[in-house]
């Protein structure tokens, strides 16, 4: 834990995004996107043709990268790799489920939120 914190580079860490094209475009417009020298991107556009395997491997890759602090993942995509997300229990990178443009945010599906509500004692 402490080691991961100490590993935060002083010039800031990145956000990673896994979502549909429109959602990602917005974040890219905001300036979240990053393409490094090896043409590695910090986002993955997921459409209906993207295989689950690829989403999983990207997610794991983002988790393993030490310059990523937050992973934003749209709920739709998160639903496809729910088990992988549940396995991830490190505080960094923080995995955040965000709504996607085509389907509104459903708090009931959020892994973390259900846990929080369970602990807080109201459902």
């Amino acid at each position, binding site marked *: 834990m402490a080691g991961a914190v100490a590993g935060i580079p002083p010039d800031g860490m990145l956000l990673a995004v896994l979502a549909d094209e*429109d959602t990602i475009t917005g974040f890219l417009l905001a300036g979240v996107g990053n*393409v490094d020298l090896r*043409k590695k991107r910090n986002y993955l556009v997921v459409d209906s043709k993207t295989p689950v395997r690829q989403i999983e491997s990207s997610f794991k890759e983002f988790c393993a990268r030490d310059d990523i602090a937050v992973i934003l993942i749209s709920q739709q995509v998160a639903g496809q790799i729910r088990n992988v997300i549940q396995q991830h229990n490190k505080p960094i990178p923080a995995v955040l489920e965000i709504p996607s*443009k*085509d389907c*509104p945010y459903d708090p009931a599906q959020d892994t973390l939120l259900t846990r929080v509500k369970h602990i807080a004692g109201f459902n």
Partner: protein
Amino acid sequence: MYGFEMMSFNIKDGFLESIVRGHRSGLLTVADYNNLSQCETLDDIKLNLTSTDYGAYLVNEASPIYTATIVEKCTQKLVNDWNYMRTQADEKLATFMDYCTYGHMIDNVVLIVTGTLHERDVQELLDKCHPLGMFDSIATLAVAQNMRELFRLVLVDTPLAPYFSENLTHEDLDEMNIEIMRNTLYKAYLDDFAAYCQSLGGATAEIMGDMLAFETDRRALNITLNSIGTELTREDRKKLYSNFGLLYPHGHNELAMAEDFDQIRSAMEKVPAYSGIFSKLGYGESQMLDKLLYEEEVKKCVDCFEQQFHYGVFYAYMKLREQEIRNVMWVSECVAQDQKGRIADGIVYLF
């Protein structure tokens, strides 16, 4: 030949004019938009659209349907109409219709060029291109490794070649911001298109002159508005303005100097045609401007159907269809995102 078109126009272009007027009557009306606005889901929208000209294109789409699909299918309808007319067209009209699509072609070229520079997959890029802006050699654009090569090998054979060669040097190709390049090309295109329309003469020259003047002035306005506070210098800004239009040349000088919205406003208001648009805006609001400009464009396009025997109707039809697709997209997005209160903000009624 002004005034004598009616003697010879129908020999070659009468059929297509009747076709395009037929298509025009297929455009969505206020009643259609009202129906669309009542929809609760995208499927409802699809259902409503199936009773219009778009029916054949949407009827086979499976649920759940997305806005992107609706837009794509509607665009497909325009493209099919357009290609049908294009293949039937006589030489002069065909050239005119090609000119109409050069705008999309510029966008496509820019898209492929930037995509290639970022090492994207060519097929993926081609899928993203606007179908109206396709040309035969577009796929070969991707073979080029740098801009210079790109120009020498590919662009020189496209209709856009003169725009490149006349306005951009090799050095520009290598280091210019892609947006500036896009707008430089667009400027050259509009100049060329206007010149072509004038050479056609008659009602076409008159009507298209008016429409293109509006188009170019709108671009000048947008460029000015969007370049405030950016790296774009006044001289560079001025280079992007076309050499015609109601603002040319004095308005352009003022726009080039403008540093905020009110200065732009005072420059624009000197032209009587635009002072009406700006009088609808409160001071300091620039957000509504786009919609007002779209409305003005639609009005011009609709008026253009009032006259017969000219090519402007084709251009107008394309513009109206595109506006309609934008409207449909807006309504669909509003419905999909549960923002139905905003529907009225985006629709520009065509009739």
